[in-house]
């Protein structure tokens, strides 16, 4: 029943490796983009606040499939933007990462913003009173405390991101979901086995993330 694993016809591990890479690059990018967006949303500059709010509300409510297709059809096929990926395979991977960052960044931003709300105003006031600049207050005082408060929610974002990488299949990135689709077509008699293998694969990726970050969340919590 699990012949498809040993037949050598499918590279299941390879496909999951692409999933892991998609997740890693997107996670790092989303974290940076999310911090920038959160910075804009709490900034004293009205224009930045307006941009942050408009961006988050638009992108967060757009289906991910649309964003990723937009990256591929709009940026790549229409405008020829390949993000430095020479082959169309490479370009597809990079565009998928771009779409995932654009989307996941909004969730990181909102998680962080709720974290920022847990930091008492007095913390920022004391920091300003010392003569720290807006960016120093954010970087040294507010964000570190905000992060500690939202490790749990950020873990959920990471888990959702891991699963969302499957949307990259719609533009042909050879990650786990694309291989699964191919296998389901070829191995119709082992339908449930194929499903099982891929479901297990994702659980193996996400479960440790949740456990590890749950432990971290407890360790870094700020005591008041």
């Amino acid at each position, binding site marked *: 029943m699990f012949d498809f694993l040993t037949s050598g016809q499918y590279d299941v591990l390879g496909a999951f490796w692409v999933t892991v890479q998609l997740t890693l690059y997107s996670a790092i990018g989303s974290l940076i983009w999310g911090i920038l967006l959160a910075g804009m949303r709490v900034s004293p500059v009205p224009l930045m606040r307006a941009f942050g709010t408009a961006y988050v509300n638009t992108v967060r409510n757009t289906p991910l499939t649309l964003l990723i297709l937009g990256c591929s059809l709009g940026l790549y096929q229409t405008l020829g933007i390949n993000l430095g990926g020479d082959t169309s395979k490479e370009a597809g991977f990079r565009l998928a990462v771009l779409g995932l960052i654009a989307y996941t960044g909004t969730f990181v931003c909102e998680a962080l913003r709720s974290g920022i709300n847990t930091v008492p105003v007095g913390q920022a006031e004391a920091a300003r009173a010392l*003569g720290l600049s807006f960016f120093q207050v954010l970087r040294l005082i507010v964000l570190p405390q905000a992060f500690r408060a939202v490790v749990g929610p950020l873990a959920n974002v990471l888990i959702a991101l891991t699963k969302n990488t499957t949307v990259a299949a719609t533009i042909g990135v050879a990650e786990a979901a694309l291989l699964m689709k191919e296998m389901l077509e070829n191995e119709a008699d082992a339908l449930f086995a194929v499903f099982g293998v891929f479901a297990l694969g994702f659980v193996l990726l996400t479960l440790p993330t949740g456990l590890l970050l749950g432990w971290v969340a407890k360790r870094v919590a700020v005591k*008041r």
Partner: protein
Amino acid sequence: MSGVSVTKDVQDAAGAADDLVVLSNVNKHFGALHVLQDIDLSIARGEVVVVIGPSGSGKSTLCRTINRLETIDSGTITLDGKELPSEGKELARLRADVGMVFQSFNLFAHKTVLQNVMLGQLKVRKTDQAAAHAKALSLLERVGVASQADKYPAQLSGGQQQRVAIARALAMEPKVMLFDEPTSALDPEMINEVLEVMQQLASEGMTMVVVTHEMGFARSAANRVVFMADGKIVEEATPEQFFSNPRSDRAKDFLSKILHH
């Protein structure tokens, strides 16, 4: 302005030569509430001014305008002869010269006591690590909490936290220290340990603006008591005069309430 031999008389536009903080004709509103009304107040170098008055009279707001945590609608505030800058780097530099101690301590919760006292030195004054460390330790020694240096604020008592907060402000070598009800959030048995530190600062010549209802402190450390009510300065006097013989009815009424509880 060039720094070359400007005579005292020329500088004088903002007030007497040795006035460190000068508020003139300051007004501020919170929406419809006129929280500061035509405030004129000059604080001389080395002077200790106690601000007293009923809750909601604008004492905290007054304090906070001096380092521009609150903006003002009209009037001027000068520090050491210079008007408060409104934004950016200049403002940050001004704030570094004005120490502030809050009612709720506001120690940085994710940093140790030592890091709290080092942070401003490292990031604002750009002091090197070793010097900042040494200074932080000696300040913690001075306020009597050196043994707690590696703990986090939440592990300290309120009195200890407030003394660390004072050390944190002193680490910037401020020209003036603002205290907004520094002992109001403390259990009674911890009030004295904080007042003693403030008392010592006052006797060393620090310029201080202290919002407090601690009459013992006002009597022994203050040069002047400023009584506020409804956003106005109603009365200014020496502590002796003010507590034994207040002139205004508002002050008499207020004192009778806090004296006989």
